[in-house]
């Protein structure tokens, strides 16, 4: 097997990384400081008869333009599918993703996106009177459909949140497998909570805690600016941290992708086990051939499998009861529950507090009794939703544990369909079908 020598980095390169580190530190502080400088000055008190102009309210995006957005999404997905499955071009996937970042990210300000669409769909399904726009539904459904057909094409090139992280991958490191598998639970947990909060009409936590939308819009709160820069900074070394360890839509796509009818492959033909692709994936989404003898299931594994399988119903019930019981805390995110708790605990706040929420409430036609009645109704929704969420989390833990004691024999290098973003990096490394690949040159040299 040929040895391909990696060029050692020189001292300048080391300095550049040092400089990068300092810049990252600065970038932690700057966006927050920048955002803190806005909205501080009150309106002047004119006494000259000057009439304040009416506040401009931006018109919603024209229906025609929404269809255009949808068309762009479909085109990007179709083109990338072709690039990944047929053309096998990482370079074109990259440039397509740059286009999507500019269009969906900076031009369309990161909205609308299928990630947040999870919440709209949840609210439409479980909420009262929320009408889901067809565009939002299409944005949510089309990537799922494409994933069922061709894997996570949306993540590869169409998602601005994924692409902006992809662009800053410079020095990816491998995380321990156990850590990845544990952190990999978070997107499902986040998804569960996002659905609960959306279905109860509380808030869209995915949008509220979208770390990159502030960058696309060139304006964010202090905390969100810090969060966005943190993800990008971490993304230099831990590739796509948001996608891998947080994105709730990614959790759905992960499941869909496992069952996709077609998927990007590392090699266009038969794998020759050259191992070149082993380190190609910054997302650790390549499964290696395994040693059947070493990884054969033992009796202990069988016992664990039975135990974990039997534990699933228990985990579901325990999770359902526990999470449902925590409705008091969970529901306090809802503005009505928060405000009602505040005012019932200290009614004097109605007159003494200058909190905007209280002032708004006092100026409204709602009575405290109405507020408490609404808040109680919200709490009962949380209690009901808590059963489903807790059950889902119990199932998640149970299935994840069961998965750890099921073995699958692998003789070649292949992408993990759930984790693979179809970015095409590994395709570049594969020498199969590429006569000009260095692998063949080195191989020839060794044989001559």
């Amino acid at each position: 097997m040929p040895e391909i020598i990696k060029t050692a980095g020189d001292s300048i390169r080391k300095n550049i990384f040092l400089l990068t580190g300092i810049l990252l530190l600065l970038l932690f502080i700057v966006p927050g400081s920048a955002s803190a400088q806005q909205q501080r000055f009150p309106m002047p008190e004119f006494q000259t008869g000057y009439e304040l102009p009416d506040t401009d309210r931006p018109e919603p995006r024209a229906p025609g333009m929404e269809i255009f957005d949808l068309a762009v999404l479909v085109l990007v997905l179709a083109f990338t599918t072709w690039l990944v499955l047929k053309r096998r071009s990482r370079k074109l996937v990259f440039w397509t993703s740059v286009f999507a970042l500019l269009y969906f990210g900076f031009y369309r300000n990161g909205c609308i996106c299928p990630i947040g669409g999870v919440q709209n769909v949840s609210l439409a399904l479980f909420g009262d009177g929320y009408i889901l726009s067809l565009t939002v539904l299409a944005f949510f459904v089309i990537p799922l459909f494409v994933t069922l057909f061709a894997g996570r094409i949306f993540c590869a090139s169409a998602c601005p949140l994924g692409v902006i992280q992809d662009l800053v991958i410079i020095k990816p490191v491998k995380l321990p497998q156990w850590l990845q598998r544990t952190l990999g639970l978070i997107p499902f947990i986040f998804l569960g909570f996002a659905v609960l909060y959306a279905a109860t009409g509380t808030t869209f936590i995915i949008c509220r805690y979208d770390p990159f939308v502030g960058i696309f819009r060139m304006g964010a709160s202090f905390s969100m600016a810090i969060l966005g820069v943190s993800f990008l900074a971490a993304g230099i070394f831990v590739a796509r941290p948001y996608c891998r360890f947080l994105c709730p839509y990614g959790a759905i796509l992960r499941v869909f992708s496992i069952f996709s009818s077609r998927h990007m492959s590392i090699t266009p033909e038969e794998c020759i086990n050259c191992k070149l692709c082993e380190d190609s994936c910054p997302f650790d989404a390549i499964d290696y051939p395994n040693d059947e003898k070493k990884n054969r299931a033992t009796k202990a594994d069988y016992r664990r499998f039975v135990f974990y399988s039997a534990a699933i119903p228990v985990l579901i019930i325990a999770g359902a009861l526990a999470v449902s019981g925590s409705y008091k805390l969970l529901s306090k995110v809802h503005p009505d529950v928060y405000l009602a708790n505040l005012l019932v605990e200290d009614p004097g706040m109605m007159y003494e507090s200058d909190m905007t929420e209280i002032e708004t409430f006092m100026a409204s036609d709602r009575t405290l009794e109405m507020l408490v009645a609404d808040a109680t109704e919200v709490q009962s929704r949380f209690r009901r939703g808590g059963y489903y969420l807790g059950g889902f989390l119990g199932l998640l833990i149970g299935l994840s544990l069961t998965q750890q004691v099921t073995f699958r024999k692998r003789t070649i290098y292949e992408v993990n369909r759930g984790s693979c973003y179809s970015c095409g990096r590994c395709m570049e490394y594969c020498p199969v079908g590429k006569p000009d690949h260095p692998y063949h040159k080195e191989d020839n040299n060794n044989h001559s």
Partner: protein
Amino acid sequence: MLMDKSDNILNRARFIAVISGVFTALVSILLIFNYVQISLYDPLDSQVMKQMVARLSSEPGNEELIREIRQMDLLARRAYFNSLWQLRTGAALLLAGAITLIVSLRFIHRQDTHIEKPEGNNINEKQVRIRSQKWIAATGMIIILLAVLSALFSSNHLRQFDTERLADTASVDEEDGIEKLQISSRVAGDDPVGEPADEPEEETGEVVETISRITMADLNENHNSLRGPLGHGITPHSNLPLNWDGETGENILWKTEIEVHGYNSPVIWEDRMFFSGANDQRRVVYCLDRHSGVLLWEREATDITGSPSVPPETTDDTGLAAPSLTTDPYGVYAIFGTGDIIAFSHHGERLWARNLGVPENHYGHSSSLITWDGKVFVQYDTAAGSRLLALDVADGSTVWETPRDNDISWASPILIEQDGSMRLIVLSNPNLDAYDIDNGEQLWSVDCMSGEVGPSPAYGGGLVYAANEYATMVAVDPSDGSIVWEDRYYLPEVSSPVYHDGYLYIATTYAVLACFDAQTGDFIWEFDGEDRFYSSPVIAEGRIYAFDTSGRAYIIEPGDEPVLVSSPDLGDPIYSTPVFADGKLYIRSNTHVYCIGDN
């Protein structure tokens, strides 16, 4: 040669990376500096500006100073918008620098990296799986543990609000045992809790609405008007507190501060307590949960046709919210010194409102409301003419209206039952009158009173009593309106008399509580309080509860000789009349409502 060119490009990329890195760092530092500067100097908190504004208040006509303040304000605004511009420009430059840096770093990394044979992985998949199981199981445990902890330890103050009890109260109309009454003025399809009915509605269409008629049993449970059931000043509630201390808080179960003041006394329907407050800006009806003192709702009397834009002038000792409210199962009714009368449901939905005409009253209108049989009775004696009205509780329309010929009165009507019918007793200068509550017909009228009448009539032992300072005290037979006896020994000015067990008690503004034989008018005894009595005495558990204006209460076992049981001090001036329910005493001061009960 080719190698040199490649190195050259790589070196340029490195150079660009360094330059863009330094540029990004500089922009970052400048932005941080800008932030620190703005944080340290808050233009809104300028001491110079504050001093100048303070000077302006003492020199309001100083044009030079005004000009300087404007200049200063303009400078601060310019600085602010300049910093905004710097912020936007800086952010754009920062983004450009960061993009250049990332691109150059990626280029360098790509040029420096070649596809290589990996060193090989030594992953022990078994170990990975075992460790993963541990961590996944730990995650599951942590989730469940956190959920359980939050279930056990997170607070839920909404429970204090006791919504179940409120819900029960809300459904009271549907409960058995309460007689239903057809009312005639709500049209099919009307929402009983919908838009305010500023004008009385016409009787058209299908009658569909029902309301509960008050019974005496209801009144014995609820303190629904000034001085309790029928306005007689006698409460049937027992287990009432005998001692409390405003200073130490002894037996003060709760105390709620009220934002807008009013002299009216609270009224109670089941778990809710209602009262009002008013000033020149606001006229407010309040509803408290009487068990916790929590304010359930407050609603303003606004948007009432005919309501004066500028309220009439009143004196400080009367104000615009002197009349007490009245309540029944259907709603709560309030009248203000502007002539506005308004109804809300127990849940705060506005039912109807109208203006009766601004009362001409040099102190301020103070006659309280009282309700019976689906009607709210309004004694509206003003300098511009006097009348007695019965309004339909459902929509505020006038059921009947009877003109009266008398001077302004500050007294409140009471109800008495005679020959199986309810009568309305009304006191003014010069008459004590009785009216049929069904049609407003005057049954009798006694010319017996003079002066500015404040105390309301009393009833007991088959006689009606009326008294007023600088005038007289009379006992009248309600069957024919004849005067049974008359006396002038002690007379009340504000506080109303009360009858109990053959005795008549009056509380005076010169701190004397006096007892008379109710049948003969003979003086029995007197008791000296420490301060004036404005609050009317109330009989509870056979004892007299009387508050003087200093806030001290006198609880007296009446009879031939007064026995002072206790004289607890609230330490807060009291002008209103106490209210009783379920072993608790409620009293309103100028600033608070108190709930007093044995802990």
